[in-house]
């Protein structure tokens, strides 16, 4: 624990030294930022709440739509044939590139942000689910069929467990993409609250202390998600099943 914190403390010391030497004119001191976090806790908590609701909604949407689409692509080769090129092309498109269209369609607000988060997560979930289902050994599927598995049994006992590693890998990637999409979309399209909005808004009004306070919160949330969402997912799946770590 201490070994983990010391290097981070050194970063704060570097920050403080830069402030003290006055190398960057607008930089606030760490103490000032901590003070802002305490005095503005109400606003920051509200931002945190709005962001949490948005990412939960967008990510669930991506999961609920992405996994079935992926399963369909994996099990039906016509669907796969038709959708694969489109997914391959759209997968690397920066999520925020869709935001201008969404802004024209819906204007600033939750709808735009949630849809951007959905788009951030959807492609990697669908793509990885499809890859996972298609990667299942055909012999296993044939064996299950010979032994008289119904369609539902085949799905629940062979296809789903067999593609789990890949599905979870997709979800893990999607968490990262949705998180980035959330902060980015909030910068471009939030009306009144949200962590990204707070950074952007305080930047416009050159309220540098609030900006840094929101940044520190973003860092903490990113770290918490990585530690308590992504790493357990990875431990439960990729490592336990003896796959290579990404």
């Amino acid at each position: 624990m201490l070994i983990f914190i010391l290097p981070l403390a050194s970063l704060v010391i570097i920050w403080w030294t830069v402030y003290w030497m006055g190398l960057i004119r607008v930089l606030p001191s760490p103490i000032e930022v901590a003070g802002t976090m305490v005095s503005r806790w109400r606003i920051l908590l509200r931002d945190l709440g709005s962001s949490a609701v948005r990412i939960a909604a967008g990510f669930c949407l991506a999961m609920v739509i992405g996994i079935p689409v992926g399963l369909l692509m994996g099990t039906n080769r016509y669907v796969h044939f038709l959708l694969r090129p489109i997914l391959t092309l759209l997968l690397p498109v920066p999520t925020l590139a869709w935001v201008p269209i969404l802004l024209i369609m819906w204007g600033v607000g939750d709808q735009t942000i949630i849809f951007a988060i959905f788009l951030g997560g959807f492609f990697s979930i669908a793509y990885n689910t499809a890859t996972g289902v298609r990667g299942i050994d055909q012999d296993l599927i044939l064996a299950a069929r010979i032994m008289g598995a119904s369609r539902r049994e085949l799905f629940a006992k062979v296809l789903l467990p067999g593609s789990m590693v890949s599905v979870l890998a997709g979800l893990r990637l999607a968490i990262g993409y949705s998180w980035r999409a959330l902060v980015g979309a909030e910068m471009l399209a939030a009306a009144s609250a949200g962590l990204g909005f707070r950074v952007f808004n305080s930047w416009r009004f050159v309220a540098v202390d609030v900006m840094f306070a929101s940044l520190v919160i973003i860092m903490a949330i990113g770290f918490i998600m990585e530690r308590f969402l992504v790493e357990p997912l990875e431990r439960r799946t990729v490592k336990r099943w003896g796959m290579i770590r990404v």
Partner: protein
Amino acid sequence: MYELASFLFPLLLFVALWEIFAHTGLVKPILLPPPSKILKRLLIEAGKGAGEIGLADHLLNSLYRLVIGFSTGAMVGALSGLGMGMNRWIYGYLNPVITVLMPVPGITWTPILVLVLGFGDPTLITVTFIASFFPVAYNTAAGVRSVKRDHIWAGKIMGVDRMGTVFKILIPSSAPYIITGLKLGLARGWRTLIACEMIAAALTGIGFWIFDAKEYLKTDVIYGGIIVMAMVFVIIDRIGFGYLERQTIEKWGMSADIG
């Protein structure tokens, strides 16, 4: 050849359906312009000559920022990762820093960097650098740390010096990880760059181009920009990384398919 045809056919079908659908008027044409209109707009933008800022200027500016930001980010990232893999003090220091800073969306650095470096290329290149650095450093470190001790000892016994260990054992053994890191780094650098071009008004760049088009409701430009981005990235990924993989890990019988 069949591969290419089976890739293009669904796309053409999709475009044809889109064209028909756009003409039915079920969706407002401003929200979903037909592909023919987008193509026309792209050709007009691409044909803009000197004195005007056209598609070529936007694209070249974005690529210029990407190339500088990514190549420096990847270089520093690979060196840091190598250091982390070889020395546990470096690992002990950099690992917490990377763990905490890596999940920060690259775009959040933009406001700070604008305050320090101002609007324009320095900010955009630095953001691309930051975004590319972390995946490369993280994966290189993981790769070097996964190299079997036996191989290093075997090398030492056979009289390989330090440089030999690095270039003949550590780097080749961790190549799949390094290439995965480079791929992720390029993808993150590219996404972050586009996003930053949107908020740090740069006056050029694909990201700026499509975000600016929103002000004039030029949806054909936005869709055109998305198509250009998709194509550029697929070309870089297939040709650039395809070549790199064939020259290295495929030749050595490894695979980078761990992402």
